[in-house]
């Protein structure tokens, strides 16, 4: 059996580990256009900041490829999938044959069309290690940085470069920062905590650039030295689409991570996930999800029928010293607790659907499990759980179930 994986990040590594749980000897080839040993992508902002260095960014131990008997083809772009001949063509016009193929090509930065953007010399996206290196090279202590996008990547980038530059301005069309994970009140709390550090302009966008001046929708203009575009990400679906693969917003997969093409699987940021908290397919460009999809794909590629566990968005981030954890969907009915930072639990009928927690993040995973396992709240002591996530609040049956073994549901 020969497995070929396009990608070398979370989903790809998950697949290798999934395959190796089942098959010890099969061939695995990893093709990645990035030349680096597998590294943790989210660490690039910590790298900018100086909180980590190149020696600590490896996502797996350095002997990973040898231990798992994979052949990494690094710095090689896959250009085409030949479905009939079952092989992947690469940029140097050679090909790699496969029995099973995984598309784990992740996502790329979305760069909107803005008049004059081409005239900006120092402009960067913030998606990978090379982006971080280029950005670092461009920064000076005197730099005025303009970041488009107050989402997760824009905010982490701002944190990463804040200490190294003269000023950081963030512009976003949305009404609040981190709009994909925070609601109005929680976003306000975070905004207040960071307002002295960053100049954040919401409900605002850039209408045009003229050299190093950005003209804004509110009539003002901003002079800057370095521009970072972080308005969003899009799945890297092109190579799969070109060979007849079915895509919607991302690659469409079933619960075994199979695509519509036989022997081709997809996992990670490049494909859609079924979000159980909204009962819909959507893109969940998050690392835990990428790893778990990859791992599920790998096991299936190795012939062990496995379904992806119930999926929900979940995020944890530190931002200028504040810890924020979030999960699931934000329904109308909520229980808010402002005693220790901020906590909002979102409920729908008898089920917990989501949460936003600032500061008091300990044991939040107990809430995540309540959502994932659709636990009927009326059967547990929700009054107690609301105050703090504790296993003590659960019925004897639930508690003994989770504590008596080592298997998660």
């Amino acid at each position: 059996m020969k497995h070929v994986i396009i990608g070398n990040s979370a989903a790809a590594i998950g697949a290798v580990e999934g395959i190796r749980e089942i098959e010890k000897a099969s061939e695995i080839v990893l093709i990645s256009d990035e030349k680096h040993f597998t590294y943790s992508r989210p660490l690039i902002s910590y790298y900018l900041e100086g909180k980590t260095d190149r020696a600590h960014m490896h996502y797996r131990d350095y002997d990973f490829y040898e231990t798992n008997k994979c052949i990494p083809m690094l710095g090689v772009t896959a250009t085409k999938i030949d479905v009939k001949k079952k092989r992947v063509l690469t940029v140097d016009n050679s090909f790699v044959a496969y029995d099973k193929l995984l598309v784990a090509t992740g996502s790329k930065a979305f760069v909107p069309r803005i008049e004059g953007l081409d005239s900006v010399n120092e402009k960067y996206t913030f998606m990978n290690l090379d982006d971080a290196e280029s950005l670092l090279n461009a920064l000076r202590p005197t730099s005025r940085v303009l970041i488009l996008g107050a989402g997760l990547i824009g905010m982490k980038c701002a944190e990463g470069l804040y200490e190294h530059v003269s000023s950081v301005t963030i512009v976003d069309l949305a009404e609040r920062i981190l709009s994909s994970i925070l609601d109005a009140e929680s976003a306000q709390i975070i905004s207040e905590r960071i307002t002295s550090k960053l100049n954040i302009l919401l409900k605002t966008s850039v209408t045009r650039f003229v050299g190093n001046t950005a003209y804004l929708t509110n009539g003002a203009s901003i002079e800057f030295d370095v521009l970072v575009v972080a308005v969003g990400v899009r799945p890297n679906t092109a190579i799969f689409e070109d060979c007849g693969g079915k895509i919607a917003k991302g690659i469409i997969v079933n619960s075994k991570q199979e695509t519509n093409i036989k022997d081709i699987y997809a996992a990670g940021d490049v494909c859609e996930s079924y979000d159980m908290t909204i009962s819909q397919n959507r893109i969940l460009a998050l690392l835990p999800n990428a790893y778990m999809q990859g791992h599920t794909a790998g096991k299936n590629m190795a012939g062990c029928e496995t379904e992806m566990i119930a999926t929900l968005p979940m995020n944890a981030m530190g931002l200028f010293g504040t810890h924020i954890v979030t999960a699931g969907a934000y329904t109308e009915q909520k229980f808010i607790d402002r005693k220790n930072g901020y906590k909002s639990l979102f409920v729908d009928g008898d089920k917990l659907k989501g949460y936003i927690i600032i500061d008091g993040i300990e044991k939040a995973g107990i809430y995540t499990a309540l959502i994932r396992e659709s636990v009927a709240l009326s059967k547990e002591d929700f009054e107690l759980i609301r105050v703090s996530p504790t296993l003590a609040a659960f019925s004897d049956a639930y508690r003994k179930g989770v504590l008596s073994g080592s298997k998660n549901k």
Partner: protein
Amino acid sequence: MKRVYVNEQWCLGCRLCEYYCAFANSNESDIVKALKDKKIHSNIRVETKGNINFAVSCRHCEEPLCVKGCITGALQKKDGLIVVDKDRCIHCYTCIVCCPYGAVSPSADGVIQKCELCAKISGNQPACVKGCINQAIVYEER
């Protein structure tokens, strides 16, 4: 693999396990130096509900969600044991969001801490098991 289990009916809720755990992981040779006047950060935590007490520590899951979710690769499974490479943890706490037991937590310096079954510490039994006066905490294969 042997794991730590708690027999609820024997647990007195005395929290000695928390002290033994914190001491064993403190790098100190003197228990007073290690624990006196300090906020205890133990890897095992006693929970209480009415007259029921039980201690919770890492289950060393076969399919560990914390390891799968770890965004840096700091959490790893090595020979069944779930361990953390403290130099690679950047305090994002994705693992806390993932763990259904609440068994990983921030340490005093922010880096994640969790039960590693005292594997790096000498002895053939985890400190919480050795120290449990009622043998409510056991270390066994199930």
